[in-house]
């Protein structure tokens, strides 16, 4: 099925000032398309979490939004460093965030579990030295 809309947002590592811009724009665009309520909130939370993960943990990457008639898809891909132990990374409360991120109130170890909880479909692929790709799907009622 063809996408009604696609958009890609570059996300810069450690740029806490711009962090959240992509998610805010995604929420705005979906609202304009008539997405509302629970789905809009879940996409907004998941997109913010994944955007912040790119800022906090990656060496830089991008977030892509695709809207289809029956679903919304978010794909986050980065250029590294990759996650050595995915099962540990998925555990609530586990975080490798640095002091700067923690001083801003991040690093609770809730990011990945929170994405998984909010998305209808969640997939994560990671290779150390290469990067991480997270794909999330949200069904439109």
């Amino acid at each position, binding site marked *: 099925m063809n996408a009604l809309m696609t958009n890609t947002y570059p996300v810069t590592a450690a740029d*806490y*000032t711009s962090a*959240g811009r992509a998610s*805010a724009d995604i929420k705005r665009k979906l609202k304009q398309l008539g997405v509302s309520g629970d789905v809009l*909130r879940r996409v907004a939370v998941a997109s913010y979490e994944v955007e912040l993960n790119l800022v906090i943990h990656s060496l830089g990457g991008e977030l892509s939004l695709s809207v289809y008639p029956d679903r919304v898809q978010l794909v986050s891909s980065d250029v590294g460093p990759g996650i050595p132990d995915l099962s540990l990374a998925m555990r609530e409360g586990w975080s490798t965030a640095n002091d700067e991120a923690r001083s801003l*109130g*991040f690093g609770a170890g809730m990011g990945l579990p929170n994405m998984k909880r909010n998305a209808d479909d969640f997939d994560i692929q990671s290779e150390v030295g290469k990067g991480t790709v997270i794909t999330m799907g949200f069904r439109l009622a």
Partner: protein
Amino acid sequence: MKVNELRELIGAENLTPEVGEDREITCGYTCDLLSWVMAHGDEGMAWVTVQTHLNVIAVAVLSDMACVVLPEDIRMEAESLAKAVSEGMTVLTTSLTAYEICGRLSAAGVPGKAM
């Protein structure tokens, strides 16, 4: 309870007078870990936090909260306030502690989770 009633209840100052105070508050919460708040934030929430940077507004807006409340006379950076105004998010500050704010909210019947 609406935001203006909360402001009166806790003797707060509205740092974003450009934004209306007629949002209905459905629940209250306090936490300073943003990821934690993202996991537990709710529509119509009054969120008490000592954090004041830009991402506080992003979290409040993305969760569709009613307002952000700063305890102990904490002020918010101009940049964050400008973002709050442009996104339509009310920011209040009061001399009360987070504990006292939540105590008054709870006594007034505001639940911890939206009904």
